[in-house]
């Protein structure tokens, strides 16, 4: 029930937007979105509301953590 789906904004009119989710079009509300999102950008949609912009380049920290753990392990094994 708590799943939110990344969807691309294809049209925008105030707080209303049309998004494309896996090829289907849906009308959603942007009322809960904390920042501006432009046509063409991706938002996470849950039950008809965009709840966050999806930042593709945000994953660096977690990847850093993971890399650190793996390096440590692999160093011991070697």
């Amino acid at each position, binding site marked *: *029930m708590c799943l939110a789906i990344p969807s691309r904004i294809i049209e925008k009119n105030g707080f209303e937007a049309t998004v494309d989710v896996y090829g289907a079009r849906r009308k959603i509300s942007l009322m809960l979105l904390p920042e501006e999102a432009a046509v063409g950008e991706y938002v996470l949609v849950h039950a008809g509301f965009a709840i966050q912009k999806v930042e593709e380049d945000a994953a660096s920290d977690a990847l850093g953590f993971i890399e650190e753990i793996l390096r440590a392990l692999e160093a011991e094994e070697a």
Partner: protein
Amino acid sequence: MAINRQTDRQVKGIRMMLGEIGRPVRLMEVCGTHTVSIFRHGLRGMFEGIRFLSGPGCPVCVTSSEDVDRAVLISREPGVILATFGDMMRVPGSLGNLDYARACGADVRIVYSALDALRMARAERTRRVVFFSTGFETTAPGAAAIIHEARKEGIKNFSVYSVHKLVPPALRALLSTPGLDVDGFLLPGHVSTIIGARPYEFIAADKGKPAVIAGFSAEDIISATLMLLGQMRQGRAAVEVQYQTAVRAEGNPKALALMEEFFEPASANWRGIGTIPASGLGIREGFSGFDAAKVFAGVLGGMERAGAASSEPPGCSCGDVLRGLKIPAECRLFGKKCTPESPVGACMVSTEGSCAAYYKYGGPGR
């Protein structure tokens, strides 16, 4: 599952760490969507040393029998349209479920979004539209948003019956359960999109347990598991975010502000677990015109008269399953009297319920 090289390295890393730890590790996936993803991708079988335990994170499963009864009573009132999410239709109450209420003539409608319920109220001014609003922090801001809109537009024939629940207070209660044996937590991704990472701090700071907010793909869950074991190995406990594409430390301030404006913490009844103080959301005093609990107070006051009983179905162990104390196969009704086609308890109703997931994908012990 097809595994890319990076994930393959991580799987090896997890196996090595499990070898070092040298005992089975028990991880709780709090969220029902994680439960399904873990099953679907066969992650339960992938790591012998890990026992994944389902937590209380399926909103359908934790909606109490009394709350379903209240929704049924409201739906029977003259002129009422009761709108709710499809998952809620078959959740058992003591007066039957909403599907049954509809078969008996009540106007119960399934909506995809809270916005649809508000649209109904706009379109049918002579009816009283009630949105039976369930879900965690991911869903609650949408309910706040429609109350905001209804108020702005002066819509009078609309109210919300809120049985919203909050994840951190439930985890706090869970962590003080005697006999709970969990080494670390996979925390829900989209709940955290709204609330951020801070409300979980107590898990690490007070209880000394590692916790990682995880995304929903197999790769996400493997990475988050690696991060959890990494913390255990280093003997530290922290709340870390694996799912950084969707979760910021501060959450979604706009959604949080709307929730804060219209809702206040209220004690909530979790199915099978019981009442947990300040673990739910009630509508604030100033907006009682939109609060179905107030609007229909007369009807709801007559619960006992209507024959509603507060007990859970006899023999159902949902409460223990939701707290990681039992696996579904340990319930004697599992797969026999209780199946997805004819569920006895709520954990078997939703596809995200752990009993339903075990049934569908076949968990250990089955």
